[in-house]
């Protein structure tokens, strides 16, 4: 450690400076109160709230959130990457409030995204220029939009992983080793479990970067290719517990709610003037050119990136390949944000996965920050003039000043449908905004309110999901809940006639399984997997056909084959990762020993 601090003065010096430079970006989050009106600010709070509720019920990884969709539940974390929420849950468990936990995630994302970008760029352009590039990344208007206006927790954390993935790719290609492959694997897995959507956006960029670097270094190409491939495979493997079920079971949720109606990408293309308009405001993306929120690249990043672009004309610089590639990435991503790319969106598979065309600005800011760093490196490289030495600082100050007027959040007192965080406010939020009301394909209608929601909105913590409106009033069915947790309910029933059914306030989805025991709950009579369960319209509720007489019914949300397969793949990948790191450690140890032997021989010889 001490050696590193002594010999890497520039590295940690600029690192510390970078942390200081990030402080203005986090100050808005230190304002007392919470920015309830930001786009996803409420979602963030209630995702953490729901996760914590499930955690308290003993679910370490709740794929099912029980209180979404007015208490009918939704498999959110089966299809939506959970890492950012998990970080928030961690902060909540440390004693922070729900709103503080969300703000804490954003604050951490600012610092770590800056350091990640710095780490990636340091190897390309050197410390000083990397510092400016990292500042450009943090203060890019789209990054600030994600933080303050969109309150996009997953995307903000994904901005940490994006440069780490590129760093991993470069490390694997330039200096292939098992540890670097493991690093790439961890970074890619981190990105995947933070935002699968962003992972789809970034994967082609990382892949292309690897190919470009490989073509530039023909020697030992297979070794480089193998290392990068191994890293990518480890990343996919480590995150398989999430993406495999998400990929295979996404078709069981109503996809119109994700990609249809308001979310139709054709309504959200960015107009060319918006890329350069310094306008800034709060709101949501609306069809047409009159968006209140900003999709600008940023004046200062644009000009400093031009400086980087001009530096690429000179041959022989070590950042030329990265710079030329990033210029192409920036132009392509900018093209994909505009309506000119509508044909590409309609025809090229995977492009439309971004949901909103302006989301490609994430890739733009990554590329632009790299070009900014190259522009600074061009002037600091090998120049001794004081003006050149302060160039990184000049660039950083200008970048911060350029975004200074955007550094604020709108702190408001929560409305009843916003907070304070709790089940009543969650129900009111769902009813007023039609948000967190996702349905599965088994539902024929999207609920606007339910009886259960009414009880929850009144503040009653209902500890059952049995839908009593379907229990006959003639006393032919007696129901008593013995135990309830968010992914399981145990019910004692007495069916006094055949053909009776027990309807639950649970949306049907793969994984729901019913076990029917005898009345003592010891002898299993019947197992009903989700395919054998019945569905009650219109909300696609889980329905268990009951045998006549007394019995104990257990309804549980369980792992399906894709979830189990994903988990096993993740275990194997983790083992491979640990093994490769250990082997690399042993190899390095031996090499170092051999080196010591040789030097001792030399010493004796002399």
């Amino acid at each position, binding site marked *: 450690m001490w050696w590193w601090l002594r010999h890497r003065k520039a590295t940690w010096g600029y690192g510390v400076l970078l942390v200081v430079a990030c402080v203005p970006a986090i100050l808005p989050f230190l304002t007392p109160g919470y920015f309830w009106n930001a786009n996803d600010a409420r979602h963030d709070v209630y995702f953490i709230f729901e996760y914590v509720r499930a955690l308290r019920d003993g679910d370490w990884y709740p794929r099912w959130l029980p209180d979404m969709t007015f208490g009918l539940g939704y498999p959110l974390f089966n299809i939506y990457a959970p890492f950012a929420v998990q970080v928030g849950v961690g902060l909540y468990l440390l004693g922070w409030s729900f709103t503080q936990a969300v703000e804490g995630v954003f604050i951490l994302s600012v610092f770590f995204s800056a350091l990640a970008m710095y780490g990636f760029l340091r190897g390309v352009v050197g410390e000083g220029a990397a510092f400016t590039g990292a500042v450009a990344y943090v203060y890019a208007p789209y990054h600030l939009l994600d933080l303050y206006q969109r309150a996009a927790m997953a995307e903000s954390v994904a901005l940490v992983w994006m440069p780490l993935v590129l760093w991993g790719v470069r490390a694997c290609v330039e200096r292939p080793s098992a540890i670097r492959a493991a690093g790439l694997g961890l970074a890619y897995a981190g990105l995947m479990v933070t935002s699968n959507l962003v992972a789809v956006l970034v994967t082609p960029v990382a892949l292309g970067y690897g190919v470009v670097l490989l073509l530039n270094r023909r020697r030992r190409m297979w070794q480089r290719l193998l290392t990068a491939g191994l890293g990518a495979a480890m990343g996919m493997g480590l995150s398989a517990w999430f993406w495999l079920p998400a990929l295979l079971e996404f078709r069981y949720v109503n996809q119109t709610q994700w990609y249809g109606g308001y979310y139709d990408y054709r309504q959200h293309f960015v107009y060319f003037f918006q890329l350069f308009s310094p306008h800034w405001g709060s709101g949501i993306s609306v069809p047409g050119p009159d968006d209140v929120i900003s999709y600008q690249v940023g*004046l200062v990043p644009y000009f400093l990136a*031009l400086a980087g672009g001009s530096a690429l004309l000179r041959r022989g610089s070590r950042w030329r390949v990265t710079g030329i590639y990033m210029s192409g990435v920036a132009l392509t991503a900018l093209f994909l944000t505009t309506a000119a790319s509508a044909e590409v969106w309609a025809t090229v598979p995977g492009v439309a996965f971004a949901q909103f065309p302006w989301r490609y600005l994430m890739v733009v800011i990554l590329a632009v920050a790299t070009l900014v760093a190259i522009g600074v490196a061009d*002037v600091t490289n090998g120049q001794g003039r004081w003006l050149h030495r302060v160039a990184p600082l000049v660039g950083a100050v200008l970048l911060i000043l350029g975004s200074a007027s955007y550094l604020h959040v709108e702190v408001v007192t929560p409305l009843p449908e916003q907070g304070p965080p709790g089940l009543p406010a969650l129900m009111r939020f769902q009813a007023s905004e039609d948000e967190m009301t996702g349905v599965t394909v088994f539902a024929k209608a999207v609920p606007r309110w339910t009886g259960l929601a009414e009880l929850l909105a009144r503040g009653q913590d209902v500890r059952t999901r049995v839908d009593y409106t379907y229990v006959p009033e003639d006393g032919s069915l007696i129901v008593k809940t013995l135990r309830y947790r968010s992914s399981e309910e145990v019910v004692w029933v007495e069916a006094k006639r055949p053909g009776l059914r027990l309807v639950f306030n649970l949306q049907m989805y793969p994984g729901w399984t019913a076990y029917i025991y005898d009345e003592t709950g010891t002898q299993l009579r019947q197992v009903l997997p989700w395919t054998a369960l019945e569905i009650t319209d219109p909300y696609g509720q889980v329905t268990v056909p009951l045998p006549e007489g007394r019995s104990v019914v257990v309804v549980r949300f369980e792992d399906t084959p894709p979830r189990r397969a994903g988990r096993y793949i993740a275990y194997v990948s983790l083992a491979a990762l640990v093994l490769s790191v250990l082997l690399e450690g042993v190899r390095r140890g031996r090499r170092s020993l051999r080196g010591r032997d040789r030097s001792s021989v030399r010493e004796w010889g002399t």
Partner: protein
Amino acid sequence: MAFPSRTVKVSKGEREVPSWMTWVGWGWVFLGVVPAWALLTYPGWWVTTEGYFPYFNAQAWLAAPRWVWRPPYIMADMPVPWPLPEGVVMLGVWSGLDVLTALRWSLVIALVGGALGVYALLRPVAGVWPAVAAALVWAYAPYTLGLVYRLGHVREVWVWACVPWVLAALGRGWGRTIWPRGGAWSWPLTLAAWAPALFPEWAFGPTPGLHLLSPWWGGVTLAGVPFIAWAVARLGMAVPFYVFTLTAAAALLVVPPARPTYLAYTPPPEPVAVFQGQGVILLEVQVDGRLAPGEKVRVSAYWQVLRAQKVNWTVFTQVLGPDNRIWGQFDGPVGGVTMPLSRWAEGEMRGEVYQLDIATEAPRSLRLIMGLYNRDTMQRLPLLDGRDHVVVATAP
């Protein structure tokens, strides 16, 4: 690509650049000026002190193009045609653009062309990067962007863009004699030209102060431009990073306060009424309902003011019979009591609705007229043609 490797040292302090870089300089000017004109690509128009008059003038000219002499157009226009901007707009319309879009693109061409003109003017004497810096600073000068986005003077923008080319065409002698001393000594002019950027509210605010000094400011701005190139060359900043840092700082000072307030509205080819001398325009009137006895009529009017108003003009909307007797009437301040005309910013446009009840005993032959008057003096405001009202609908 095999560029000639010959290097050109063009001014003191500048890093030697390959000769092909002089050509690349055009490209950097072109790219650097993008944020200056990108805001013009909004599909509509914006609040300017010229309002929609460039559009109305273009419409009138396109309807009857005259290249030598023409009668005065609607307002604030000279009887001399301006072949360059009008020709560009005409080309745009011929190629399928609507008139507003063609006008916007003519401004884009002027901005880009002007910046390239500054580069052409200064590159032979100052060098590549100093000339790029000067061209970009010209493009982001308060006067340039104020002219485009707050004043909206299409023809002046074209004049402004042509001046550097004219100077460049006058010969290199100008540069050789003026440059060595002029570059160094034009710093007070640069300061003066950029002073409005320090008072953005005054320069670009609701009543832009820039237009009071417009012609002078243009001269000062242009005369100060060589200093930028001189300073960049002299201080050893003739490298891309400093040039674009300087441009970024300039753009940061001017673009946010000068940015346009957009209007998602396309008016008819000519306004309904222009109130002479006061800069109040009745852009469009829509009448819903039948102009007949016993009917209710709903009048939607779109107003625009091009100058700050001291008087809160009152609109009169009257249904008149053949004998000029009033059968229905609505009078009220334009903008209502909450937003009377004196509170409108220059170039502001608003729409409002008036309801009229026509008397049942009214004759069948009716006409709906509109106009403005001063409530204190009861004097009507004359129109451009001398009348004091405009007929907006007739029946039968």
